[in-house]
């Protein structure tokens, strides 16, 4: 039924037996279209699935069978045989439909889990920021009050404590910020990003501009992802770009949110530079988790432009935005 050279490349590790069994079973089915033959198709599909084959591998089996089953070769021009062969294929594909549906369900479960984890980080960040942070603030206040009337020679050990408390304050702030930037909830997406950029500008003596046509009412997970991507992109600029200025633009169309971060720094050759060393991996991973993508443009001496895209249906949020703008 099969000449030795007819095997397509890449099929070597595919169970040969299955290919023959499929062709044989289809041949029997075309000779006698009974339920037993269709049941065999189903069992073959099930075996193919457990051998790690996908729908396309199965189509390849089918294709090969179409070429080699003698019944079909003789009746290739007759419609009924081809239609029946398709019916046979449908049975074999049916287990894949079950798997496909189970993957869809699990995908939903995973995004629910992701959302739950994000909410948890958010609550923890809030507790660190508002709870522990506020308490520390009271400690700092009490310390400075206690020191007012203290004789000069007793002050140095207290100054050491003040210094430690300040360091603790810095650590709590950065911990809370890494978990979830509470400014996103307090200020909204646009002002939170603006706040972030102003901080970077002033502490690193860089000029920056920020333009956004995006409403604040994007889903919380999207806002978090956008904020983190901008933060990492700007951190990259500070660390590697030797830039004097950078621009951040947030835009959207009906189905996407786009973020562009560009700088006037030294740039690099994207083909030669391993992206891992540039801290782009984190951005890429975050975007991938939200089914988004990253586009990088750079050349030595010509700055760098990062364009990040996230698929988001902003239907409701945008309508609300447009209503409030009117």
């Amino acid at each position, binding site marked *: 039924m099969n000449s030795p050279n007819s095997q397509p490349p890449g099929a070597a590790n595919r169970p040969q037996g299955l290919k023959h069994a499929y062709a044989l079973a289809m041949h029997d089915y075309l000779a006698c279209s009974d339920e037993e033959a269709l049941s065999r198709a*189903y069992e073959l599909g099930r075996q193919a699935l*457990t051998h790690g084959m996908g729908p396309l591998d199965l189509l390849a089996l089918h294709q090969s069978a179409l070429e080699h089953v003698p019944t079909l070769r003789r009746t290739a021009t007759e419609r009924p045989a081809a239609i029946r062969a398709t019916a046979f294929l449908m*049975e074999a594909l049916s287990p894949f*439909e*079950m*798997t496909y549906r*189970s993957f869809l*369900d699990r995908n939903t479960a995973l995004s629910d889990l992701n959302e739950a984890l994000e909410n948890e980080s958010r609550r923890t960040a809030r507790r660190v920021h508002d709870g522990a942070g506020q308490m520390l603030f009271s400690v700092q206040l009490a310390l400075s009050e206690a020191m007012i009337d203290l004789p000069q020679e007793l002050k140095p050990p207290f100054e050491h404590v003040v210094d430690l408390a300040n360091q603790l304050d810095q650590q709590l702030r950065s911990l809370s910020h890494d978990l979830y930037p509470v400014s996103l909830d307090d200020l909204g997406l646009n002002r939170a990003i603006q706040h972030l950029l102003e901080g970077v500008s002033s502490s690193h003596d860089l000029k920056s501009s920020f333009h956004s046509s995006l409403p604040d009412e994007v889903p919380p997970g999207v806002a978090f992802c956008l904020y983190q991507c901008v933060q990492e992109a700007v951190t990259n600029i500070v660390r590697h770009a030797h830039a004097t200025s950078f621009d951040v633009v947030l835009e959207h169309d009906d189905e996407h949110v786009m973020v562009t971060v560009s700088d006037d720094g030294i740039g690099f050759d994207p083909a030669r530079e391993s992206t891992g060393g540039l801290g782009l991996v984190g951005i890429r991973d975050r975007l991938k988790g939200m089914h988004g993508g990253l586009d990088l443009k750079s050349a030595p001496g010509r700055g760098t432009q990062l364009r990040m895209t996230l698929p988001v249906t902003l239907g409701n949020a945008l309508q609300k935005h447009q209503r409030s703008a009117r």
Partner: protein
Amino acid sequence: MRLVVVILGADFEIPPDMARLLTGESVSVLIDSEDDLVAAREQGRALASQLKLSSTDIVRIATVISELARNVLVHARRGEMQFRAIDDGRRRGIVITARDEGPGIERPDRAMQDGYSTSGGFGLGLPGVRRLMDEFSLESTKAGTTVTVTKWSDW
């Protein structure tokens, strides 16, 4: 009168049981071997096409019968499958019941989770059956297991 049903170009003669099925009575198939699995698929497919379910729904029904019959053969060695046509005034549907007197499923809730099914992570077995059908129920005790599923016509 002889009825002939055309399924994707293949002709099947309506078995004598079909007359009873169409009046709402149920027909049973004993499940004791792979041959019985095939007989059950035949019975279910004939009824589903008689009820004018779509060709993809008919494939789903055959799939469900294979999975349920396989469960019976693997876990209880033998059992029974029942097929019945129903009508709720708006739609027609097929009810399939698989019953066995095997040792029962120890943790029915787990059997319905993808990871615990005997098919591993592929979502086959009972979780797969539930996804393909409109209604699904599972009862399992030490005296045996009964799975009942319903598929309605689209209109």
